[in-house]
Each structure stands twice: as structure tokens, then as C-alpha cells.
């Protein structure tokens, strides 16, 4: 998106005013490469955050205070674990389809942060229904698959773009 916007801006400039000097072009390319590398790093950070949440879930959130009876009354009856599992399958399926869609048309921007929220919500739902121990692995594998594919999408898109930018940079350096 960022790259396309920049390209469009350059395209609309007239040759006299729009042709950038080699130095400013180099600077712009460096900025773009930094942006692309940052996107790859973002993915790794979010993946690390997911591992941290999963560590807590694997320990059955022992560090959290137990849910009091008042809170349970306030929140209401918990859904059955099988309903949460059906929701997890539907979510994983939709998320994978969306990521495949973004592979063709989407921007080279990491969009996995929302998935951390959804996956943590699944952990919390299972925790609330006292079924986290039995259902930890499906959520963990779902997270690994979804975030792994999203990271792969961002990594492959950004790596290609970085390669192109570096080619232009090498040409300018000549």
C-alpha cells in the first residue's frame, strides 16, 4: 500500500519537477526497505506474544485469580465446549481463506494482531468453561497455523519487494 502510494505520487509529477535526485531516491528506497523489514519483524513479535499467551494457557492461567461466583453470575452460563470447538473450526477455516485471499491481493502489511485477540478469546472461553486442559492443543495449533501462514505471506511479499528495491539501489550505486 505504502509502496503503491509512493509510486502513484511519483507518477503524477512532471519530469521537470518530479524526477528525484539519485540521493533522495536512495534515501526513499532505504526508507521503504526499513518499512518492509519492520513488517517482517512485527510478525515475529506477534508470534512471540502468542507463545507467551499460550504459555499462560498451558498452565491453565494459574496466575489469574479464580473466577468468583459473582462474576460467573454476572457473565452468565458458559457455552458448551463443543460449541466453542465448532466456533474455533469455523474461525480457523475463515482465517486461512482470508490469508490466502490476501496473498494475491492484500498489502504487504502484517495483519495478525487481530488473530492474537481471537485466539486469546478462545483460550479464555475454554478457561471459563473449565475445558482448557482438554482443548489447549487445538487452539495452539490453530494459532501456529494462522500466524505461521500470515507471517509467511508477509515475509514472502516483503522479501520480494526488498529484493526489487535492492536491485534499484544497486543500479543507482553504479
Amino acid at each position, binding site marked *: 500500500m505504502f509502496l503503491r502510494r509512493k509510486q502513484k505520487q511519483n507518477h503524477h509529477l512532471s519530469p521537470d519537477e518530479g524526477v528525484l535526485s539519485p540521493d533522495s531516491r536512495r534515501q526513499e528506497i532505504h526508507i521503504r526497505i526499513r518499512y518492509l523489514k519492520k513488517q517482517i519483524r512485527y510478525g515475529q513479535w506477534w508470534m512471540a506474544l502468542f507463545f507467551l499467551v499460550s504459555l499462560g494457557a498451558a498452565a491453565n492461567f494459574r496466575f489469574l485469580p479464580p473466577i468468583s461466583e459473582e462474576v460467573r453470575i454476572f457473565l452468565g452460563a458458559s457455552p458448551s465446549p463443543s460449541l466453542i470447538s465448532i466456533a474455533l473450526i469455523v474461525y480457523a477455516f475463515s482465517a*486461512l481463506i482470508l490469508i490466502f485471499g490476501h496473498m494475491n491481493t492484500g498489502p504487504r502489511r502484517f495483519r495478525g494482531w487481530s488473530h492474537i485477540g481471537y485466539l486469546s478469546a478462545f483460550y479464555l472461553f475454554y478457561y471459563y468453561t473449565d475445558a482448557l486442559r482438554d482443548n489447549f492443543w487445538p487452539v495452539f*495449533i490453530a494459532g501456529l497455523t494462522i500466524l505461521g501462514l500470515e507471517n509467511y505471506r508477509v515475509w514472502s511479499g516483503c522479501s520480494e519487494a526488498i529484493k526489487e528495491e535492492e536491485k534499484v539501489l544497486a543500479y543507482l550505486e553504479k
Partner: protein
Amino acid sequence: MFNNLASKAIVPVALSLTGFVIICSLILCSSIKEDLLETAVQQETNLAATVVTSTRYAMMTDDRKNLYHIINSIGDQEGVEHLRIFNKEGVIMFSSKPEELNQVVDKSTAGCIECHSGSEPALRLGSMELARRFVNAQNRNVLAITSPIYNDSQCSAGECHFHPSQQKVLGTLDIGLSTDSMDSRLLTLRWKMIVFCIMILILSVGGVSALLRRNLLIPISQLMDYVKKVSGGSLDNDYPKGVNEVEILGEIYFDMAREKHLAEMALKKSKKADN
């Protein structure tokens, strides 16, 4: 490593397929386990009800010898880990293990707390709430049910007995069955699932890889070789055939190379004629 066409086409498919199949299998396993457990609890509840019904007459007539005999006979059955009857105060009055007799059970432990958590003990619970799972002293997995023995008109109005009619629960029957056979069935199921997953993955990822290789990767690699050969000066039309798009590309490249070659020849001829 991941920059070639083969890995770009196969890695996302393999990753998503593997992940999704594993998620579905784990959830299926968990759901089957839940169903089996629910069935086991239902069967155990029925067994507890049968025991209570079978011992009712002996209890009413205060025939302790007969009662001990029934408890011991059921307790000796394979898979029955324990069978106890508590009185209202939580004292074990009858047990398939004589060493447990007259011991008092803590009402805050699993199996008791479900009814005794409030100021007034709950009178009725669902069958799943009456069940508990634990590992016993013999290191065996046990699924136990506590079933209340309710007062009825025959108990309170009988001449021989002393339970007042306002007393709702007379005692509790606690029966524990080993879950070894269920656990081994689940383990077998898990292994079958793993084998099934691996087979699906090999078939799907292998199938996609083989088709991609046959219809895309090999023709493109052949086209690359052909282009290199033509660029090197060889003018033949052995471009890859079989895949329409690749064949058209090869044909166009061959036509371009031939036209370029003819143009070069014409140029050379005209230069010679000029000389």
C-alpha cells in the same frame, strides 16, 4: 530456499492443510472423549441406581449381613474400584474395602463439595455433576459417582425404622469404576487419528506437489532451458509441449527468434550486396 516456485506453491498449502487437519482431528478426539465419558457416567449412574434399588430391602429390614454381602459381591466385580455407603454425617457405614469402615469423609472433597458447597446441601444434581475423575492409591484412573439415597414413604413410615419424613437424604452411595478400558480405547483412537492425519497429509500435499510438478514446474523448467538454448544461437522448435500456456509461450518465443534470425540474415545479405 523459499524463493523458488515449488516452495512458494507448496509451503502455504502444506502449512494450512496440515494445521487445519490437526485442529479438526484434535477437536474430534476431544469430542469423542467427551461423548465416551458422558456415556460412562450415564452407565455408572444407572449402576448406582441399581445398587441402591437392590440394597433397599436389606436397608429397610436392617439386614446388615445381606447388605455387606451385596456390597462385597459388587465390589469384587472386575473394574469396580470402590463401593461405599455413607450415612448423613459422612461416616462410611458399608464398603467393599473393610479398612474404610467407620471413616469420616471430608465434605469439602471432590464428590461431596458439589452438593455441600452452599449453606444448605443441594438435593438434586445432574449426572455429570455427580461424577468425578481421579487417580486412586493403586495408581488407576477412576470415574466415580456419588448417588444420594433418598428417603421415601416406606422408609419414614415403616414400623422397623426411625428416619423422620422431613429428612430428604438418608445417605450417599459412592461407586468408582476403573477407566482403563475407556482410556485404552481413546489411546487406540488417538493413534488411528494420527495415522489417518498422516495419510491425508501425504495424499493431499503429495498430490498437489506431484500435479504442480507435472503440470507447472517441469514445463517451466523446460521452457527456461529452451529459452537459454535459443538465446545461445540454436534455432529449433523443441519447446515444451503439453501445457497450453507454456506451449504458446514457447511458440511465440520461437517465432520471435526465427524472425530475428531472418532479419539478421536479410541484413547480412543486404550488407554483402552493398559491398
